[in-house]
């Protein structure tokens, strides 16, 4: 059995409610922090733990907290990113619906460290029912004195609110999220200034992922050092992996970082192997934005070492032969999968979700989708493959926010590793008939 830190109690019956959660040791981190630690000491523990942001970028959380500007007389905010919209990712949903109080406990301890007296959980609108679960839990926390004025007589006060989004992947990007929190279109802001200086309503703000904030709880309870001993190298602690696609046991798994990818895919403790005994073709290891890798490269790095589930090992080889841990959305594809069509599906997604502010992303994502559509229609030519490469190259690095890269990387990696499949579609359009029909996008739009 692997090490469980966050999901230790996820199967305890009644854990959603306050009573059971408290009985299982819930809210002790808040007691510890507020009674025995200064805010800076909490931040120091988080630094010591080596915790890295679980939202996708993997930025060291303690460091991020220490960037928070602290001008006198200006309010500060903590905003939890519960937008979880990266295709293939569903760990935050699991955590919030299963153990809502863990997130709330983490929010209190983290807000204390940051000196925030108001905090928000920005949750994607489609998770309406989870917003209700969280609101219930928040009410319970207020009723039991964990939220509100003068918590545990410590002089520290905190109000916590849930804010629902309304359907926009881009609102997961932290500055778009803040715009959306302010009741605006989810257009990412142009940086600098960064949220730590000018965030929500122009006040210093930290945005952290659900899983990141939940991990603060065990870090305070057991100490940063204990947390840093779990995992491997700079990938400390455990990570929630959302496993989906052609596998026998899809679901959310808490893994200790450093287990092998092979073990994760094939062992019965995790994915349980490929569905229907088929062969593995490719994996998108960290949510739809990260580069796709063919079976051989996901199981072993280019220099033949077994690939591990960790930030470093998955990135081994850079973008030529490696990928990224990203949000931990682990999408497995069997030998029957059409990479070109899958890419079209991803590209269609980014086209649909581009906010439209900057020209390379707005026009480029639409253009790439059209070219892929053309290839799948049997109308493609070899120059279209070059054109796709060229378009993604002109998007990457030239946009306001990383959605541009998120749209470019899947295209680049699919062409890099599966070029022959594109060529086959272009040279021999009848081979596309084996690919299931794909729907026409534009007719499906609902104004």
């Amino acid at each position, binding site marked *: 059995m692997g090490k469980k830190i966050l999901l230790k109690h996820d199967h305890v019956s009644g854990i959603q409610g306050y009573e059971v959660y408290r009985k299982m040791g819930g809210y002790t981190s808040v007691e510890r922090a507020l009674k025995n630690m200064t805010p800076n000491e909490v931040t120091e523990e988080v630094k010591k733990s080596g915790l890295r942001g679980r939202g996708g970028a993997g930025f060291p959380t303690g460091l991020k907290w220490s960037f928070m500007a602290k001008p006198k007389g200006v*309010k500060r905010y903590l905003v939890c990113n519960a937008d979880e*919209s*990266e*295709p*293939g990712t*569903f760990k*935050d*949903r*699991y955590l919030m*619906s299963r153990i809502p109080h863990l997130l709330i406990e983490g929010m209190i301890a983290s807000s204390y460290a940051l000196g925030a007296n108001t905090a*928000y959980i920005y949750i*994607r*609108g*489609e*998770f*309406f*029912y989870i917003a209700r679960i969280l609101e219930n839990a928040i009410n319970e926390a207020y009723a039991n004195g964990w939220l509100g004025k003068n918590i545990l007589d410590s002089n520290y006060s905190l109000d916590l*609110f849930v*804010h*629902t*989004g*309304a*359907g*926009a*992947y881009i609102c997961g990007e932290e500055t778009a999220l803040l715009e959306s*929190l*302010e*009741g*605006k*279109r*989810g257009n990412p802001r142009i940086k600098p200034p960064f949220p730590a200086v000018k965030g929500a*309503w122009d006040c210093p703000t930290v945005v952290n992922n659900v899983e990141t904030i939940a991990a603060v709880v065990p870090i305070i309870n057991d100490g940063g050092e204990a947390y840093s001993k779990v995992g491997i190298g700079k990938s400390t602690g455990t990570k929630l992996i*959302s*496993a*989906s*696609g*052609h596998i026998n046991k*899809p*679901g*959310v798994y808490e893994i200790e970082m450093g287990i092998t990818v092979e073990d994760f895919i094939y062992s019965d403790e995790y994915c349980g192997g490929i569905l229907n005994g088929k062969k593995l073709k490719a994996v*998108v290891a960290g949510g*739809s934005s990260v580069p796709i890798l063919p079976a051989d490269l996901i199981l072993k790095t280019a220099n033949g070492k077994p690939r591990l589930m960790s930030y470093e090992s998955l990135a081994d080889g850079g973008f030529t032969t490696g990928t990224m841990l990203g949000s931990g*959305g682990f*999408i497995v*594809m069997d030998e029957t*999968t059409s990479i070109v069509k*899958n890419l079209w*599906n*991803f590209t269609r*997604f980014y086209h649909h979700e581009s*906010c439209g502010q900057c020209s390379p992303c707005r026009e480029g994502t639409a253009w790439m989708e059209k070219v892929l559509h053309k290839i799948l229609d049997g109308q493609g030519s070899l120059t279209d493959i070059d054109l796709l490469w060229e378009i993604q190259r002109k998007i990457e690095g030239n946009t306001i926010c990383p959605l541009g890269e998120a749209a470019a990387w899947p295209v680049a990696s699919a062409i890099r590793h599966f070029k022959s499949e594109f060529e086959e579609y272009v040279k021999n359009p009848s081979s596309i008939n084996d690919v*299931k*029909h*794909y*729907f026409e996008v534009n*007719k*499906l*739009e*609902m*104004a």
Partner: protein
Amino acid sequence: MTETKEIKFNEETLELVQRIIKRYPEGKQKSALLPLLHLAQAEFDGWLSAPTMDYVASLLNILPIEVYEVASFYSMYNLKPVGKCVIEVCRTSSCWLMGAEDIIKYLENKLSIKAGETTEDGMFSIKTVECLGSCGTAPMMMCGSQFHEKLSFEKVDNILDKLKSDDKRKTYFDAVVVEDY
């Protein structure tokens, strides 16, 4: 299909509106726009007409164009009339790998409408949506706030029958059954 009603929240909802506005710093009442649009959509026939949006603008003391800009940005807001049950089917990555296209086609055939359309009796609309964070239980769809996961044709049949016999407008505020997983 559209039950004509005066566009005004009742007292209870208006109180809720005030509570929502209080969640945000003073003078930043525009922040309440997204939650209020959800309330308005649920209250006024499942979509946001121009008068509905103007009403929300007046509640928050902001310009109508500020509401149109926002409402048209987010995919959960419907800007034209929809059926009582909007079936939102995920068409993205993992759901696609697990047969979302077949589910969409099945729904289209069964209801004799295309995605983006509403049945003549005003009962169902099909809307294709992007990943709803349910990829491990793909394929999936959502109606109101209820997730329906691990879909098969048979399961779809049952869900549609149940929705039909309920004959109620589904909103995001409905109570849901959380499947144990």
